[in-house]
């Protein structure tokens, strides 16, 4: 799995963008999106996903269940 940003909730404040350790977040039409190929759920970097921790709107950065759970390299 990976995190995704619910566009209708995103304020476009950009707080998440510089916090992502994988540079997976970018702006698209005034709101922000997470590249699922780059997202590691912050595993191996931080105790909690940074986009979730910094986002000003609750339940906006959420798990995208359409992707398999991220597996850190052994």
């Amino acid at each position, binding site marked *: 799995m990976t995190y995704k940003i619910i566009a209708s909730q995103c*304020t*476009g*404040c950009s*707080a998440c963008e*510089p*916090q992502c350790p994988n540079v997976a977040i970018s702006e698209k039409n005034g709101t922000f999106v997470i590249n699922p190929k780059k997202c590691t759920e912050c595993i191996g970097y931080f*105790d909690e996903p940074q986009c979730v*921790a*910094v986002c000003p709107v609750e339940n906006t950065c959420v798990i995208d269940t359409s992707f398999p759970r991220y597996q850190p390299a052994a």
Partner: protein
Amino acid sequence: MSAVVVGIAATLSSVPISTGTVIRVEVANQAAAPKGCSSSGSSGKSSCGSGAGAGDLSPEIWEKIKNHPCYSEEAHHHYARMHVAVAPACNIQCNYCNRKYDCANESRPGVVSERLTPEQAAKKVVAVASTIPQMTVLGIAGPGDPLANPDKTFKTFELISRQAPDIKLCLSTNGLALPDHVDTIKKFNVDHVTITINMIDPEIGAEIYPWVYYRNKRYKGRDAAKILTERQLQGLEMLTDRGILCKVNSVMIPGINDKHLVEVNKAVKSRGAFLHNIMPLISAPEHGTVFGLNGQRGPTAQELKALQDGCEGQMNMMRHCRQCRADAVGLLGEDRSAEFTTEKIMQMDVEYDAEKRRIYQESVETVRQEKAAAKKAELVGLAGEHTDIKVLVAVATKGEGKINEHFGHANEFQVYELSTEGAKFVGHRRVDLYCQGGYGEEDTLATVTRAINDCHAVFVAKIGGCPRDELKAAGIEPVDKYAFEFIEKSALAWFKDYLAKVKAGEIEHTTRGDAAIRQGALLAA
């Protein structure tokens, strides 16, 4: 004192802190030795502050604030400021803020209509400076926190200091990231920094801040508030150590921090803050904030004034704050941001003319001196009077320190307290325009009356017959005989007449009631 606080910071930065093991080092709140300009005279009261004039301050400090509308009450009648909204991200959550709410018809911090890149912001500043030569201050105040967007904030300062070097740079922060950036702030010659400090007690902080994002972690409740207060006070000390003028903003939230703000006042004064600005909470359900939705009320006009008066013995207080938007442009009481949208700016062909600005600002200084002389002359007449009578009066003005606004066109009234000591600016009341399209509206008149209900008189350049009668019925005397004259001189002349009438038994002095602070959106721009 400094060493203790720095020690805490070292602990914070070197030890990974989890929610369960929050450091237990208390920030000492005992009064540290006053620094900077915060001590003088036998009263122990700061000699610097909102109402202070050239004679009360050291030349160095006066030079810094004399044309800064936010740091000098006297300057705010003449000089304008602008904010550029280059800093959208924030690192804390406050219960009086909802970042989803962007509305052009509303004036409160945290709200903007459009965000700018540093390059757009620099162009906007040059365009505004050329159009409004009395614009002397550029501030970055959000709509998030400037120091949660350090690259954008400092890039903007860099561009502006190159293109318009005479403009003063200013920023307003919640203080969480402040200690990390103090040296950069100094490097960019940012002379004025405002920190919003609503508490120094984490128990109280937990009711105001649901969380902070600090060192890659979200902290909640008391832990969050504890980190925040430590960082704020440390940042304040670091700034004052470097000679940077600091203003502290506090939001007065009745039942939560209203009594506590007296302690906050002492704590910030002892750390060298220059000015304390206690502002009323703005809270309405339509703002979608926690406080708006849970019915938390803001203070009344007299509750706010009583707290400001109570703290004034410790330190001078700012009372002319308009709690403006993060993209405001113009004099503090006005907002001309709609004239300077990005679309319009990009079409403007602007040339920065420093000489033209200097000449204009010289003419402003002449008016200021005339105003001060007029006030002084009127004060002489009061010298022999001794009475405890104090009254408030409201004034319709659009700047220059003159009574030069029509009652129906005023979207705010400035409030002066008159006594034998003189005329003192003690606040302002925002109202909806009474007169729209030439017709006065009765419902609006009632809200105006409520907003200035604690005043004995209202000074205007002109007023229609209908509102005149209604104001009289409400016990507020409409006064238009000083139209286009200086405010303080006129108010003192009126006050002398008032005292004479009381003395002669023509009228009886009565005290007025309380007044309401307007909460809703500013519907008429």
